[in-house]
Every structure is written in structure tokens, then in C-alpha cells.
């Protein structure tokens, strides 16, 4: 197995793609779902069938019971489940080469270990695997290709980020929460949890447990089937009244833009927030914060940014101090060690200033840098 080492913006992704193009046709799993799945199938069963070789001649990678997912639409799977499905499809195919660009960072520790072991052993079956991953540091047994070019174009400096005045505490209480996706299994059943501001909470659970779903319920993206949420002792139903408590940085940064450019995104959010009486920092302050996150122009087209830069920019509203609660879904995806460490320190500063933080990560080293309370999601409960 080959490992492409380097920092962010060193050209790792380009190097990985160049390697795959030489080996084409080769299976590719990109950092986010659009580049992990074929996009040609309406169901998980079809996704598997598109890639299945007439006579599969290698061991199948099946960490999940994909038969139970057969009728699901692939985009409705969680980020980690999509990556597992992609590796499963590869294992049934006759591709001789696979390239994975940081996608394994989305997997929980067990599944990540399984996937890396599978790819390592697959070499003995004549398969060439190339990996870019921020959490592997010169892994033993892998041929390392160091990519050393550097670019300061999107360099970020988080040392001065999240230095905010103290936030007024705002506690959250969730009671009797039940939720299931249409036609799916129960994600939560009568779950409850109390979250106190000024603390960081880490959501833990296997891929597909419901971590992102919990964040979406708090932000009002999803509506609970039953249960109640209280914000500072008052009923809070964000699915009806709108989100006014959580700055939500989604796992895929492209799930949170409200405009084509940064300026458009800021203007639209400002309008709606100010109408609700929420104080928003002036444009100059937000522009300065965006510059610290690596984007130096408000006219910057969001979708033209590299994915890593988009991910960093997705922390803008979390670090702006607009909302009392901050939710970060897999904030370290695609980020190199230096950025991860700086991000962890910034989150610690936020919770120290009285902000409530809910974050999801499978990166134990990152989580260890933040004083936090773990919240485990399993068996449809939060404990």
C-alpha cells in the first residue's frame, strides 16, 4: 500500500489522482460523498450491482449488513456508512487499484482499523492501494511518497480565533426524544440529555449511530417524532420557529452555504439573524475572521475553494460568537495535524468563554486536547 504524505495544500490530492490516472481504471473514494459513490444508483443494492464483478475473486469487505440497507438511497446513509459502502463496492469489483483521499477519517475506530487492514492485506491479492490520510503518520509497511510543495494562498491562523467575550450561559435539556427516518429504524427512542453551556461535549458512536442526526434535531433541520427540547428552561422547537441557538458546522462544508460567495452568505445570514434580534459582528470583523481561516476576500466563490479551505471556512459562524452554542460535525476532516491542534485549542477557548460546544469526531488525539464530556449514542439512547 502506498501512502501519500504531506501537509494541507501540499498537492496530496493531485498526486493521488495523478497516480490513479496512470493506473486507470481505478476505484476512487474522495473525501466527501459525491466523490465516494457513483451517483448512478437510486438504491444501495444498485450501487453494489454497478460495481459487482461477474465473478468476484477477492475477499469481500463487509463491515455492515448491506442487505439491511438494500432499499435505502445512498445519499441518505451517514458519511461513514457511505465510505464503508464504497469500500464494499470496491471489494466486490474487479478494479486492480484503489485510491482513497482522506475518506477513511470519517470512520469510527473499529471500522477504520478494518478498512486499513483490508487494504493492507489486499496487496497480496494483486491490488494496488494508495492512501492520503491526515491521521496516519508514516504508517509502517506502507511505501511513503512525500509531497513537499507548499502554498500559502489559503493558510490559516487559528491562534487569534475564538477570542470572544464571555457568553451568557444557556442550558439545553432534551427529554423523551424519539426519531426515525421515514421507512428506517429508530435512531432515538425516549432519549434524554442535559447540556450545560461553558462545556464541550463529544458525541461518540459507531458510524450510523445518530450523531449527526442529533445535531440536526437540535438545529431544527429534522423534527423529532416525540419529545421536547428546552433552551434555558423554555420550550424550544427549532423545526417550527427556526434555529437561533446553534452555529452548526456540518460534516460536509457544502451542506451549509447560503450563497455563491462568502459575502452573499454573510449578508443573507446577517439579515435573518438581525431580524430575530441576534447581534451580528460587522462585516469587517467577519472578513478579518474569514482571513484568519484562510479566505481573504468576501467576493470569494465558495465552491471554487479547495475542500480543505471550505471546511475551515465552515467554522466562521462558530468562531464569530453569534450563537451561544456551537456544533462541529467532524471538524478535523481533511485537516493536517497543525490545524487540528490549533482547532482543538480554539474550541477549548470557546468553552472557556462560556459557549456550549457539541462536537463529533473519531479522532481521539484531537478530542484529548479539549476538556470535554463524552456523550455516547448507542441503542437509541444518549448516555
Amino acid at each position, binding site marked *: 500500500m502506498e501512502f501519500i504524505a504531506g501537509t494541507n495544500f501540499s498537492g496530496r490530492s493531485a498526486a493521488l*489522482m495523478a497516480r490513479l*490516472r496512470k493506473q*486507470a*481504471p*481505478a476505484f*476512487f473514494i*474522495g473525501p*466527501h460523498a*459525491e*466523490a465516494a459513490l*457513483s*451517483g*448512478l*444508483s*437510486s*438504491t444501495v*443494492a*444498485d450501487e453494489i*450491482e*454497478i*460495481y*459487482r464483478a*461477474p465473478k468476484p475473486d477477492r475477499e469481500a469487505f463487509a463491515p455492515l449488513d448491506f442487505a439491511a440497507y*438494500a*432499499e435505502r*438511497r445512498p*445519499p441518505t446513509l451517514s458519511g461513514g456508512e457511505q465510505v464503508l459502502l464504497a469500500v464494499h463496492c470496491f471489494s466486490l*469489483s474487479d*478494479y486492480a487499484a484503489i*485510491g482513497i483521499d482522506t475518506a477513511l477519517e470519517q470512520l469510527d475506530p473499529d471500522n477504520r482499523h478494518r478498512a486499513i487492514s483490508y487494504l493492507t492485506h489486499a496487496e497480496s491479492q494483486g491490488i494496488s492501494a494508495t492512501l492520503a490520510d491526515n491521521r496516519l503518520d508514516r504508517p509502517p509497511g506502507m511505501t511513503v511518497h512525500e509531497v513537499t510543495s507548499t502554498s500559502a494562498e489559503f493558510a490559516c491562523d487559528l491562534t487569534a480565533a475564538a477570542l470572544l467575550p464571555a457568553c451568557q450561559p444557556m442550558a439545553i435539556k432534551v427529554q423523551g426524544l424519539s426519531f426515525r427516518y421515514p421507512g428506517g429504524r429508530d435512531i432515538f427512542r425516549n432519549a434524554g440529555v442535559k447540556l450545560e453551556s461553558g462545556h464541550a461535549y463529544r458525541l461518540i458512536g459507531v458510524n450510523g449511530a445518530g450523531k449527526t442526526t442529533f445535531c*440536526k434535531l437540535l*438545529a*431544527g*433541520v*429534522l*423534527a423529532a417524532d416525540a419529545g421536547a427540547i428546552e433552551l434555558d428552561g423554555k420550550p424550544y422547537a*427549532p*423545526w*417550527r*420557529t*427556526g*434555529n*437561533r441557538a*446553534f452555529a452548526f458546522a*456540518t460534516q*460536509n462544508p*457544502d*451542506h*451549509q*452555504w*447560503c*450563497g*455563491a460567495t462568502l459575502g452573499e452568505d454573510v449578508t*443573507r*445570514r446577517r439579515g*435573518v*439573524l438581525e431580524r*430575530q434580534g441576534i447581534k451580528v459582528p460587522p462585516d469587517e470583523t467577519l472578513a478579518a475572521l474569514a482571513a484568519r481561516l484562510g479566505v481573504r476576500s468576501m467576493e470569494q466563490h465558495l*465552491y471554487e475553494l479547495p475542500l480543505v479551505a471550505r471546511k475551515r471556512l465552515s467554522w466562521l*459562524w462558530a468562531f464569530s460568537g453569534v450563537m451561544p452554542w456551537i456544533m462541529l460535525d467532524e471538524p478535523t476532516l481533511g485537516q493536517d495535524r497543525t490545524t487540528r491542534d490549533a482547532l482543538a485549542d480554539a474550541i477549548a477557548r470557546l468553552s472557556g468563554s462560556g459557549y456550549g460546544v457539541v462536537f463529533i469526531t473519531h479522532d481521539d488525539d484531537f478530542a484529548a486536547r479539549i476538556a470535554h464530556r463524552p456523550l455516547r449514542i448507542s441503542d437509541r439512547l444518549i448516555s
Partner: protein
Amino acid sequence: MTPNGAVAFALLVIVSALLARDPVGLLVILTATSCFALASRRPVWSALVWSCGIVLPLVLFMTLVWIIIVGRAPHEIAANVEGSRSAASFYVTIICLRLFIIAFTVQATFLHFAGWTPLRFIGALALPRVAKKLLVLTLSLIDTILQAVDRARTALIGAGLITRQRSWRNLRHGWILVQTVWLTVITIVLGRTRDKWPVEDTLARLEGSLAARATARLSATDFGWMALAIATGVAGLR
């Protein structure tokens, strides 16, 4: 029954419904379609409800316009005669019954293949490879739009621009949702066509997968259903 036979039956019924001249002929065709739906041995209730849901807005609109407001049938207006509301009712009944039969026939066809995935169904159709690929790509685009709607809603609800449930805010910012959806569709499609598909040669793989699913063009059962469709069509013309 093969997918080819089901599609042929559906097309024949749709043509028959369009050519039928009176409600009796349409009821004969509807009876044949109902038998076709029942032959799937699956619950037909949801298919009926779905078809009624499709036709209901048309029924309301045509009742308002032709029966209540105009009060005459189109052929009466063309002939410049006084006309009557009963003639207008007759006209509305035929048009709505036609649409109901078309909607129900499509649903009945899906009932026969309820356990099939879209890829399996398209793969089994006796169509040129290019046509099958186009069908899959069309479904893929529909799925991409659905995915984009989901993504855009997540973004706008998370930012507080819209709410999950009905609100004035949604009306005010609905255009932003539409803009975000299309921007997202373009981004997703570009992402796939730039990296994933070229390096994997995914479309060639799809072609192989579709070819592997080719089945018999038509079975004896198919011919039976097609004959019934033709017979009811002829009955409807009388």
C-alpha cells in the same frame, strides 16, 4: 411477466384511454387496468390513493372552470350552441377519468415490479444500450436533485433562513432555496464528472451491469395482457 410486457401493456392502455370516446369505454379500460393491478398480488390501495391524488387538483380545477364558470362543453362552444352544465360535466368526467387511468396504469406497472431495483428494471427492458444509459442517467439526475434539495434545506435551516415547518420565512426565502439547490446540483455533478467517473470509467461499468440484466423480450403472459389491452381499446372506440 417481463418489464417489456408491462411497459407494452401500459402504453397500449394509455393510447386506448386517449382514444376512448365515452365514460363506458373508459370504464371498460379501467376494469382491465384494475385486473392488471390485482394480478400483481400486491396491495393496490396505495396505487389508487396516489392516482386519486394526481387527479384531484384537475377535477377541482375543471369543475370550477367548465361546470361552474363556463357551463358548456368545448364542442358546444365550437358549434356556437347554448350548451348545458350536464354536457360540461360529461366532458370533465372523460378528461379526469382518462388521467386517472393513465396514473393508475403507471402505478399498476410499478406494482408488478415492486421488489425490483430501478437498475434491474431498466436493465431488463428491450431497449438500445444508449436508451438504457439515458434512462439511468435521468434517474441519477432526479436523485441528484433530491439530494441537492436535502443539502440546501440543511444549509438554510441550519442558518435560520428557513424553517423545517411551514412559515412566512420560507415564503420570503424560498427563492434562495431554489438558487441553492441548483448551485448544489451543479457542484455535485461537476464533482462526479471531474474525478470519480473518468478515473473509474464508471459509465462503461454501468453499461456492463445493464447488459448483464437483459431478459426475455416478451413472455406468453405478456401477450395475453397486451391482447386484453387491445381488446379494451377497441371496445372504447365503439
